[in-house]
């Protein structure tokens, strides 16, 4: 097992290197930050000064080598726009994205798996049809539209939730992990916990619709396949109730593809959700990196891509490892 994990991690290194090089080359080809920084004040002289300051005129391999050397020594560089260390900005953004993504994944799993199970168990009935139409709507609904509808109806019209942000005005909370709900729990501030959860619900709901729909659809098809197996017929023949057949005998065996989808969706959600973060004023990774792309803030984009790539590698590894737990026939020894 340990050997397998080590081998996978070593194999990830060339992938990460490739990702950083491609990003670097592509960003270098699409422009430099001086014009984005200078705007109407653009002059050739000022632009040259900016390029000299950030040593942008060096050949690509030299710039990339310099960048890689710095990253290996733990320095992600400074943002060209804010001039702050990228690592410091990353530490601020990642917890916000983590909190929102985890909440969305939990919601997606809590809604998607039961919906898929019910649809499969009631295959070809009105319930199945309703569940799959719900999933279709979930996967087709534009997130920005849903987000604005949630704000308009539930926050603005009904007043049930705050419209935006992570915490109310004047609410004090010490920063421990950067995940406000967790920080509130750890510091025992129940009012802040309630407030943070209250702020988290609408963006998490908006963000969870697409993954929930994916999870529901994949759960349904996996369950249908398993429910058609001989051992399920045997279980039924033994007189087990349908509920026991589904929960004890079918579900665990159907989970393999579901876990894969959940893993992939978690990776996507952790990469930041630009629209949801923008509309709900959620200060996460997605908005940070996209803003950096528009201003050609190469160090920030590089750091973002590196984090996203690492996350995907790690999540894929965890998903693979979970197979062994879900299916004893799979072994990594």
């Amino acid at each position, binding site marked *: 097992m340990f050997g397998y994990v080590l081998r996978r991690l070593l194999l990830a290194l060339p992938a990460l290197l490739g990702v950083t090089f491609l990003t670097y080359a592509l960003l270098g080809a699409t422009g430099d930050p*001086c*014009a984005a920084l200078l705007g*109407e004040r*653009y002059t050739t002289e000022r632009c040259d000064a900016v390029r000299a300051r950030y040593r942008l005129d060096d050949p690509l391999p030299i710039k990339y080598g310099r960048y890689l050397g710095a990253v290996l020594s733990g320095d992600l560089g400074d943002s060209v726009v804010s001039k702050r260390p990228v690592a410091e900005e990353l530490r601020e953004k990642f917890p916000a994205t983590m909190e929102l993504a985890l909440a969305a994944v939990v919601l997606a799993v809590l809604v998607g798996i039961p919906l898929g199970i019910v649809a499969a168990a009631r295959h070809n009935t009105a319930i199945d049809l309703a569940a799959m139409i719900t999933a279709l709507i979930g996967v087709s609904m534009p997130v920005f539209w849903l987000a604005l509808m949630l704000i308009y109806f539930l926050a603005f019209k009904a007043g049930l939730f705050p419209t935006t942000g992570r915490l109310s005005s004047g609410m004090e909370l010490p920063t421990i992990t950067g995940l406000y709900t967790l920080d509130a729990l750890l510091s025992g501030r129940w009012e802040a916990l309630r407030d943070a959860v209250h702020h988290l619900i609408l963006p998490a709901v908006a963000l969870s619709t697409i993954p929930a729909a994916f999870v529901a659809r994949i759960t349904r098809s996996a369950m249908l396949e398993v429910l058609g197996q001989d051992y399920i017929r045997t279980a039924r023949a033994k007189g087990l109730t349908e509920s026991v057949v589904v929960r004890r005998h079918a579900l665990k065996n159907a989970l393999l593809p579901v876990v894969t989808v959940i893993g992939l969706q978690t990776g996507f959600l952790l990469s930041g959700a630009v629209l949801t973060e923008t509309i709900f004023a959620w200060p996460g990774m997605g908005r940070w990196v996209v803003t950096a792309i528009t201003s050609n803030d190469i160090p920030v984009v590089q750091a973002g891509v590196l984090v996203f790539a690492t996350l995907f590698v790690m999540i894929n590894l965890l998903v693979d490892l979970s197979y062994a737990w879900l299916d004893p026939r799979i072994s990594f020894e």
Partner: protein
Amino acid sequence: MTRISRAASRLALSVAALGLFAACSPEPTDAPVPPAQMETGSIEEEPEDTGDKDRLVFGHPADAAKLDPADVTDGESLLVTWHIYEGLTRYVRGSTEVEEALATSWDASEDGLEWTFTLRDGVTFHDGTAFDADAVVWNFNRWFDAEHPQHFGDWDFSYWEYMFQGYAGDVDDDENPKSFFVSAEAVDSSTVKLTLNRASAPLLQNLAMGNFGFSSPAAVEAAGSAYGTPGGSIIAAGTGPYMVEEWRKDEQVTLLRYDDYWGDAPATERIEFRVIPDGTSRYLALANGELDGMNQVNPEDIEQADSNDDVQIVMEPANNVGYFGFNQASEPWDNIDCRLAVAHAIDKEGVLGLYAGDAEAATQMMPPGLWGYNDSIEDYPYDLDQAQTYLDACLETSTMPDEVVFYVPPVQRFYFPKPKELGELIQASLAGLGINTAIRSPEWGTVWLPDVREGKHDVFLLGWGGDNGDPDNFLCQFFCGGDASFNGDGEGNGLSPDPDLEALLKEAAALSDQDERMAKYEEANQMIHELVPSVPLVHRSPPLLFRSNVNGYVASPIQTVLTSVTKE
């Protein structure tokens, strides 16, 4: 239809489910009331507020990049730093004129090369250290000298370079210093002398700019390069009416009233600048009572706000111009008749149709609120017959190319919210005269701006937002030949579109008497109107929204300052 109705029923179910959650939530105790717990409802109901009359919550689209004003160029940073820092002079509230701030008086030598400022007594920085002549000198040295230990290596104090024209040691092709600034020295603890190498009339205007507010030397030295960032041991220490209480990056900056402030104490104890990037979300947060005020309003939300009794609209006076420019290095735009033909062919009423009632037609290359604006200038009338007459006269001696290269910004600018539509509108007007234009909108940063600055265009759309409330900042910016947008030598080097105009503008910038300067700029505006190096199109006024229970805001063309604001 089925899909819509199912979606609607699902939304209704979600409302019920989430409502249940809200109903099950525990009641608040003595903590500040989160907005969601208030009895909010439709906008027709009772006005709500953020629940605390001593806390003003202002929404804006992006967080401050930094709270060190010397090192920022973005309006969102300055929105916050205006409340924290002060300079030697400041803008009279609601105007672009300047008055005493940390300097109580000043004298200039006859040649305008030595300025002596008397400093205000009894002023302290937010870290408790005294504001005195040494602190002023330290700040000037930090801005001017790139080798200063607190200039922090590759930090770029851009506005110093823009307004003071260079750093210590920078020289032009003739080995003359680029900057007109020579030195700052402390005459005694409350007197500072600034020495210049050439007269610069906009000096007092420049010194009032938000970028030249003084930081506590002790605080900057203690925080090092983390000064002005959320990670700094001291985030910011100026002398202004508010000090930083808390900064949650990309969420909010909370300012707290500075009790030892030398001037009138601000009305509200705390101001919270809350970041909400999406315009619609920001408006809904305001309408919901979570914000007391906001800037950067979406055009469609101005209409909503107008019909909402709980919200008031404040239009800030315009401090910008959007224009159509000619490259006089390119035939036939060196011919004034061709330029006049275009000036008479642009329908400015049509142009204003692209705005949400927040813009006015421009007759000059600087906004009407700025001194030096010439009230007697009448706009070129929209008259296609007259345009045709000018064009015919032009084409007797010049040749119109088959295709005029027309650079239209590919990105929104504040003064041009719909650049593509504006370009097409003008293209159609010119096509009516038989002038065939080819719109070019290449990538803004890497191609568009360099091309226009190097004169690779025939005609173009661009604009400018004012920095320091001085006409020089508009007119010389355009017409003193800094780049090849309006005229050039064909090799990318800039020329003024007219040497007499350039001379007049440079003369005006060197005068120290304000009345004389005003007369010169009025004359320059008349000259520009006659020379037609460009067709001024619009001045756009930025709207602000406030809840109806907010009073006392003074609209200003140059700064959004909330110190006078109260909540009922």
